[in-house]
């Protein structure tokens, strides 16, 4: 997602590192876990990524100079017999063309790439399915679709048995207007071979306008609320007329209603999300509304990409934050009040190297649920735009353990 700014950008970092100005409850919660992490390992090298791109289906054509820019968002995984399916965006341009008797591509950067691999090699040896998000058949669902220059994601929710659309997939996508990012949802009923836009769900409080400095909104995942009724979606918000993002904000929608709208309707669509604001869920629409910074007192650098999962060992939510160089760990019982961040390590210098898109993957049957130990995958970028197509990039991993 950070393909606009050279070196992913001091501007990007600046957006993440600025102080926020939300409300501030006392942080009384203490973490149950005092995490230790291993040294990083490379799980997919630059060469493997290049080779994966050569196998991608539909084949890459004109990538806009990016090559196979994978993974370009946070990623997620589903356990299957014999291994895992991994999902992440791929930064290349995907021109529209005829392939295998049907049209593919959407003339945008980004996609939803499915790979079949292992936790030690997410790319695997098969053909990555590099699928562009198609417009909704009803143009009224997302009138902004034609304007996106980027549209891709990797944060998957697989609908559980007993709910509308059981087994189907919902992905949070990251879409970009010029220098402006937002979040939407797309659905797949064929395990990622096709993705259909369900429309936008979250925009920054700052409206789109020419001349903005780019503010990263990430590509967070749908997380069930403590009572299981709502999807929570975490993101950094940008209050209007400021250059200061929140550390983390959250929006929600009723899970059952969302799945009904996505999979139970002849006209699939998303439903309105609401931003959490001043302790109230009923005041601010997630499209452009204001939000409360859940952790206004955190240090400026404690923010960035936010990745939230439930940890069944701790019986708490765990958030990994990634500011492009350093990762942080924090816990929550209710998803709203978070412990003070614990730094896990610094893995890039922020100038010639960057480490965006930290994504936690659990080691149990459901990789979206974390346990005593879990993996954190991230993209290692080296001199982006200084050396396209992403010379020296790789997918790396650390292991986090709660002793």
């Amino acid at each position, binding site marked *: 997602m950070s393909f606009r700014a050279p070196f992913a950008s001091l501007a990007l970092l600046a957006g993440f590192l600025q102080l926020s100005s939300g409300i501030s409850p006392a942080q009384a919660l203490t973490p149950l876990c005092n995490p230790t992490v291993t040294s990083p390992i490379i799980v997919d090298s630059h060469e493997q990524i290049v080779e994966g791109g050569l196998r991608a289906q539909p084949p890459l054509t004109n990538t806009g100079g990016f090559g196979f820019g994978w993974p370009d968002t946070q990623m997620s995984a589903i356990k299957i017999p014999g291994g895992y399916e991994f999902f992440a965006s791929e930064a290349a341009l995907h021109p529209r063309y005829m392939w295998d008797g049907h049209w593919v591509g959407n003339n945008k950067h980004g996609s939803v790439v499915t790979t079949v691999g292992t936790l030690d090699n997410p790319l695997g040896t098969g053909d990555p399915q590099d699928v562009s998000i198609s417009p909704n058949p009803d143009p009224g669902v997302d009138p902004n679709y034609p304007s996106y220059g980027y549209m891709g994601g990797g944060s998957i929710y697989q609908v559980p048995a007993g709910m509308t659309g059981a087994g189907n997939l919902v992905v949070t996508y990251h879409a970009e207007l010029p220098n402006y990012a937002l979040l939407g949802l797309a659905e797949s009923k064929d395990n990622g071979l096709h993705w259909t836009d369900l429309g936008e769900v979250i925009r920054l409080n700052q409206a789109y306008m020419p001349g903005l400095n780019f503010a990263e909104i990430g590509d967070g995942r749908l997380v069930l609320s403590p009572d299981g009724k709502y999807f929570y979606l975490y993101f950094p918000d940008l209050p209007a007329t400021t250059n200061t993002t929140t550390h983390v904000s959250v929006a929600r929608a009723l899970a059952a*209603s969302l799945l*009904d709208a996505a999979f139970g309707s002849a006209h699939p669509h998303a439903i309105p999300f609401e931003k959490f604001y001043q302790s109230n869920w009923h005041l601010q629409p997630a499209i452009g509304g204001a939000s409360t910074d859940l952790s206004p007192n955190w240090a400026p650098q404690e923010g960035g990409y936010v990745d939230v999962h439930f940890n069944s060992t701790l019986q708490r939510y765990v958030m990994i934050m990634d500011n492009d160089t350093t990762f942080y760990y924090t816990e929550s019982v209710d998803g709203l009040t978070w412990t003070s961040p614990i730094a896990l390590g610094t893995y890039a210098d922020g100038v010639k190297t960057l480490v965006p898109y930290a994504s936690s993957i659990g080691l149990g049957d459901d990789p979206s649920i974390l346990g005593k130990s879990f993996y954190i995958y991230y993209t290692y970028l080296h001199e982006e735009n200084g050396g396209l197509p992403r010379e020296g990039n790789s997918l790396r991993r650390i292991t986090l353990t709660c002793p």
Partner: protein
Amino acid sequence: MFIRSQLVSCALLASLFLLAAVVSSAQAITPLCQPAVTSPIVVASPAQRLAAGAKAQPPLTDTFDWPDTPLGIIKTADGYEFFGSDGGAHYRQMWQGHWVGNNKSGSFTTTVGTLDNPLGTGEPEDVSVSANSDPAVNPIYPSYGYMGGGPVYQVPEGMTGAGNLLATYHAELPNDALYAALGLAASADNGLHWTDLGEIIRLNQAYAVGLDGFEIGDGPLVLSPNGKYFYLYFPDWIANGLLHTTNAQGVSTTTNVSVARALAADVMNAAFGPPPHHSIPFQKFYKGG
């Protein structure tokens, strides 16, 4: 809509009349009509309104503050049906065996009359907007202190929901000043029941406590020149970093008139097709696109 300030308030008028400081294109088009207007006449006197309020159904739980929005009008075989909000509070009450009222000010009030007497002689149907059966359609519904409207669009033959009514409502969030949004409501029984379809337009300035009051009005759905879209006109307030409609230089950041649109067929399909009934996203016109 003016539930907080009696006499409509100079502040409110001021906000409506402020010059906009946002985009400005030359107006090359000239009017075909040079309008002339008559002096005002009274078509519904205070006494008539008082009398009508005494007949309103369901019975009032507050004063009859009609009309509190622009009116919508449909021609019938015998005359006209008029639609306008009643700004009084509508407390929830049991009436004729079912619950009515939504504990909010505002309503959709239907009257049958003539162009010379919109109140007519019958009983005004003073109907609150009900929550959508799916609370996800409008999670903000519980927060509104005011919810009502008048501009009605009757779905024409050949379209989904033909004959039904679609109305723009004006909703207000709690504040010490006026912060309002626009939403849609639907009626499949000629105004006897109205169901919320959700918000469609908010100001660019997000809701916050302490904001200046700003009126968004209650505009009608208007078909675009090609007939494909609903246009909805409103004054917008562009966020300027302050709680005020003027920026640090004292210049207004409100628009004189802005417009948003949505595909008309899709709006009606979503409103009157398979449940849950809902609205669809409207897009504001911005920078020529």
